[in-house]
């Protein structure tokens, strides 16, 4: 009850109190995340899929020291194996940044890591009853709300299609509410993927991917299955964030995935990329104040299914990194005019590449390789690594590589930065909320 009141209080403060939208990310965290790391990140946590035949074969949280000059710079300093392979995927902080929630899309376990000592995370709690309690499966996005964590699921326990919903947990791991995705009654497909909130506009955007059957299936088998290929989301939904009610469904064909609001003060637009149709879409209000989605750029040659996957927006809203999984390349788009993004740079990172995370100042860009256990390439093509590059505005220069196969770790997937509690790296945008939480 206390946390519910606190959550309501914080929401009111953010929505009604006219607080400027808190700049998010390094650079994709929820705007409600405290202690953004605006300086040098110190540790990188990689949620890693166990790989059959490699090491202990278990999913694990891998922590890497990224403090320049440190004796263990660029080295793995901690691993926590959580047991089994459950399709480890994405992570997200609680709003106070004390805990890191990490989900598995197959067995629906949610692992809550205490990262107070970021060099030595501890497994604090495991949530195992998501499917039983909600009927939703595939916990994907973990998005901090005040005193809460919103979890976007991908599927359901009844038929493993993409029909799903959002579950709101308290920071302590209790389910507070559930919210089904908008279905045909609103022109939606009931699918889910990512969450992106703009508190200034009281708007939450969601995107849509596919259900368990497709995301667990081998990618080659999937593209040879024309009917299964039709089971992808083709919409985004606009929600009234405060009431958690969907208010409009936008047509965005071809599996719109990551949602990134521009972080530049005064901007009220977001971008997404569609994995199957290889487009960048802009979501913003039209002249009449209606939210609309617009196809604004093409990524690579859509006929070859380059699969744009993760994207990372610069804090100043001027550039967007777009990774294309199939050709293992990253592409930088100039989005100064979000109506017409232009590709200005490309570089091959490996045989495959999925996630991209840039530092707040955009000078460091991290890449990992794994997309989904059964979507990753096979044999020699199955690169699994973390790479850090320096970005000088013209060229990516590789700083270090951690080979997750050579180190017997597994498939490198989602990344999150952390820093020691008194680090100078941490920004100070959330003091007001932290004082309330304390």
């Amino acid at each position: 009850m206390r946390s519910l009141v606190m959550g309501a209080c914080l929401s009111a403060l953010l929505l009604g109190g006219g607080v400027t939208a808190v700049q998010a990310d390094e650079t994709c965290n929820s705007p409600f995340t405290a202690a953004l790391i605006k300086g040098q990140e110190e540790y990188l946590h990689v949620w890693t899929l166990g790989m059959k035949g490699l090491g202990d074969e278990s999913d694990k949280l891998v922590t890497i020291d990224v403090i320049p000059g440190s004796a263990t710079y660029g080295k793995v300093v901690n691993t926590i194996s959580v047991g089994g392979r459950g399709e480890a995927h994405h992570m997200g902080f609680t709003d106070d940044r004390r805990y890191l929630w990490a989900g598995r899309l197959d067995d629906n376990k949610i692992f809550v890591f205490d990262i107070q000592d970021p060099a030595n995370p501890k497994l604090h709690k495991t949530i195992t009853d998501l499917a039983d309690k909600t009927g939703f499966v595939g916990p994907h996005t973990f998005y901090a709300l005040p005193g809460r964590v919103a979890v976007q699921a991908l599927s359901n326990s009844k038929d493993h299609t993409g029909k799903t919903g959002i579950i709101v947990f308290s920071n302590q791991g209790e389910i507070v509410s559930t919210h089904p995705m908008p279905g045909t009654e609103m022109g939606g497909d009931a699918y889910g993927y990512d969450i992106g909130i703009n508190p200034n506009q009281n708007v939450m955007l969601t995107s849509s991917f596919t259900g368990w059957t497709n995301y667990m299936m081998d990618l080659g088998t999937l593209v040879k299955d024309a009917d299964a290929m039709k089971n992808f989301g083709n919409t985004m939904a606009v929600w009234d964030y405060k009431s958690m009610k969907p208010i409009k469904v936008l047509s965005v064909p071809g599996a719109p995935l990551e949602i990134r609001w521009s972080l530049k003060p005064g901007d009220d637009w977001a971008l997404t990329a569609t994995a199957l149709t290889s487009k960048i879409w802009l979501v913003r209000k039209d002249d009449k104040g209606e939210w609309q989605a617009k196809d604004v750029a093409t990524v690579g040659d859509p006929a070859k299914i380059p699969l744009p996957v993760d994207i990372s927006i610069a804090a100043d809203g001027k550039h967007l990194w777009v990774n294309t999984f199939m050709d293992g390349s990253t592409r930088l788009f100039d989005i100064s005019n979000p109506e017409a993004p232009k590709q200005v740079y490309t570089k091959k990172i490996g045989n495959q590449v999925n996630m991209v995370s840039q530092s707040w100042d955009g000078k460091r860009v991290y890449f990992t390789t794994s997309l989904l256990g059964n979507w990753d390439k096979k044999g020699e093509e199955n690169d699994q690594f973390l790479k850090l590059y320096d970005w000088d505005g013209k060229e990516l220069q590789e700083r270090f590589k951690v080979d997750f196969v050579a180190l017997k770790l597994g498939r490198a997937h989602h990344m999150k930065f952390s820093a020691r509690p008194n680090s100078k790296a941490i920004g100070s945008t959330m003091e007001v909320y932290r004082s309330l939480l304390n």
Partner: protein
Amino acid sequence: MKALARAVFVAAVFAGLGVAAGGALSGSASRQAGHTKLTSPLGLPPVPEKYAVLPVDKIELGRKLFFDRRLSFNNTLSCAMCHIEEDAFASTQSKRAIGMEGLTLRRNTPSVLNSVYQKTLFHDGHESHLDLQVWLPLLAADEMANPSMGYVLDRIEGLDDYKARFERVYAAEGISIHSVGDAIAAYEATLLSGNSRFDRWHFGGEKQILTKSEMAGFEIFTGKGGCSSCHLIGKDAALFTDHLFHNTGIGYRASMHSDREYVIPLAPGVETRMLRHEIDAFGEKLRNDVGRFEVTLNEDDRWAYKTPSLRNVSRTPPYMHDGSVATLEDVVEYYSSGEAAKHATNGKLKRLDLTPVERANLVAFLKTLDGDDRGRR
């Protein structure tokens, strides 16, 4: 040791009672309270005696086990996650079933409806006992992936909500290899689907219930198309199967032909095309499948698969043992155009050369085979 003791016990039960362990349900049982007598709907033969009268508690226990995801190694899969109730207890989402950790099974999910009448189970017929069948998916590494029978029994024993239920139905035996399979088989036996529009027309005497097109399709089915030579229609009932195994060319084509082009839908109205070898560059290669030959080692059984029942066929796309044919129209075209005759190696299939109207009528007839489902939750 515990599991071994159980296995010995079950073997003794089987040895003593014959394989019809469920035969504990004698005729007198039907007169006892708390039992259900299964009467077959119009168009289906009588329910086999072994399952004709079943304790209600046993059916309920089997239903609970059938839908319970906790029976898979990672709590993700149940019988019902592939045999989806709303999809006529088949799966329409993918060509082949998707199992443990997303592994692709070799074959399409068959419907469980009317499985009580099947003489063999699975597309290649490698099991013949309904009450033993469940142990194969429970233990298969690419399905529910439990490491052993004892592991499954221990897990059920460790779940609070099963103990009393097993004691009620299997007082002396408790949770055992036999009782788990027997309870699930009892539930599956209740999943009967008949009384289709075809049944009402053909067996029920409702002569006006089919359209002219559907009736013309029936004529193709039993005449020019030759469909009923394998998909049998009996005098009083029809299961639309001869229970035999035939090579219709689908398996041969998959095993022996190396490349083909795939049309890949990317979004409504947007598609691209890729060759199989291009897709294989990033995906898994198909596991080979030689059908019934794998069970009998008889050369004549190469790429032969069991004749599926056609009941509810419109509700269970995609088609063929590997789900490689998307629609009923495509199935009819496959046989009509001579593709089947070209790839089938036994020479029994002929090019049909059906006209477009005949093909449409045949599809219309097939859609009259949707039944009403009993035993649903």
